[in-house]
């Protein structure tokens, strides 16, 4: 990859990632990817009334992986869980003015990580209801 292959928006998000970090008492956590393949990301969400009120990420990977993670946090913040589940990989890539074709599959995992975090939240809710808390 060279800097010229990425859109300005990808570079901008890579250099100044939004919502980077962890949420210690997150309501849902989703991790996807595999460091062996060069990409791994974790998304943390705080949920209130079925809405994502806070979201953070940590990512190991290339510039595209970091930029897509940053972008998904912007797209998901404030959305209801239903709305957030509808965000696709393509939405993330489009919002970044596109990704190099070779990066579309390997580094565009942010939507998957977000969906995993939401599912994790739902699982935890189910368990909580069962145990009567």
């Amino acid at each position: 990859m060279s800097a010229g292959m990425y859109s300005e928006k990808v570079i901008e998000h890579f250099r100044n990632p939004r919502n980077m970090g962890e949420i210690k008492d997150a309501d849902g956590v989703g991790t996807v990817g595999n460091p062996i393949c060069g990409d791994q990301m974790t998304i943390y969400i705080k949920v209130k009334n079925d809405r994502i009120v806070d979201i953070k990420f940590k990512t190991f990977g290339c510039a595209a992986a970091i930029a897509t993670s940053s972008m998904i946090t912007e797209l998901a913040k404030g959305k209801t869980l239903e709305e957030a589940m509808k965000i696709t990989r393509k939405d993330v890539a489009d919002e970044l003015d596109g990704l190099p074709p070779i990066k579309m599959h390997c580094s565009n995992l942010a939507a998957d990580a977000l969906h995993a975090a939401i599912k994790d939240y739902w699982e935890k809710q189910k368990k909580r209801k069962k145990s009567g808390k």
Partner: protein
Amino acid sequence: MIDLRRIYLDHAATTPVDREVLLEMLPYFTRFYGNASSLHSDGGVAHEALEKAREKVAEVINAEPDEIIFTSGGTESDNLAIKGIAYKNKDKIKGKGPHIITSSIEHPAVLETCKFLEKEGFKVKYLPVDRDGIVKLDILEKSITKNTFLISIMAANNEIGTIQPVEEIGKIAKDYDIIFHTDAVQTIGKMPMDVKKINVDMLSISGHKIYAPKGVGALYVKRGVTLQPILNGGGHERKLRSGTENIPGIVGLGKACELAKKRMSKDIQHIKNLRDKLIKGILENIEKSYLNGHPEKRLINNAHFRFTAIEGESLIMDLDEKGIAASTGSACSSKKLQPSHVLLAIGLTPVEAHGSLRLTLGRKNTKNEIDYVIETLPKVVNRLREISPLWKK
């Protein structure tokens, strides 16, 4: 966009054309443009330049001028050497599985040529290397069969900079009467290369790695070694490489070899000092940073690191913004999305290979530039580690 403050640390990828080289070349584009094969005096001028360049290239490796074949670069030289000798030997040992020995850390120009020949019925042994990247000589000797006709092992590795024991390999090849080819693309001008001392039969040279232009190279072919050409045509270059000679490029390669020889001891001192300072500065200033390749038996201009918990492509992108041109063995920077075969061969895990960084210095690098890199790189590594879920302090 021209940024005068760029710090170029990717000389193993390519080098700028030296000003003296360029000046030597220029007349051969517009003034002395004759075809070296033409009988008229314009052709004669070109022919003379061609032969003068041949002498200069021969001199840098202590060969005879008639042992130098000009090519389009390192890749062609490797292809001509390996395919040329393979096709020549194919019939001799037909049906017995003609055998080539190479290493698992060769440049793709050698590896892919060997893989291609495997499809044509040749057998190839890819020798393992140790953790420093040095070919295991005991396995080399054990791998030799009566059908082995070629050993092709690089003089020094282009990624991690490890220098191979070519003299010992040359001795083994001679003892068993096997042709020995070495890809010396990375070593010319950085260490003495003497084909007689190494006992090598063929040696590949590339122009653009030694301050000559891209698109020109040479193959040394020892007197008495016969090859089958891979380009057929008008019979140029002792019928081994047809095609009108690239006179400006060849003149440039000749001048670059002359300069390499003239400046070698000065270059070695200057570049090695800076490189040692760089390695020390980085290992001291970045925790969980490691040097890949052999600590001493390495090219004088090569520094190859790995940093825990970060990925190389993002490292390159960040350094690029800070004005530093570098390279990585991470899969994410390659078209194949595979981590470097060299880093895997020296026993790194894929995750470790992803976090690698190659900095290769050149003649024009300065102490100030290296100071800037030692100051900047830790900041870049720290930023990416803060983003990384794999980083645990």
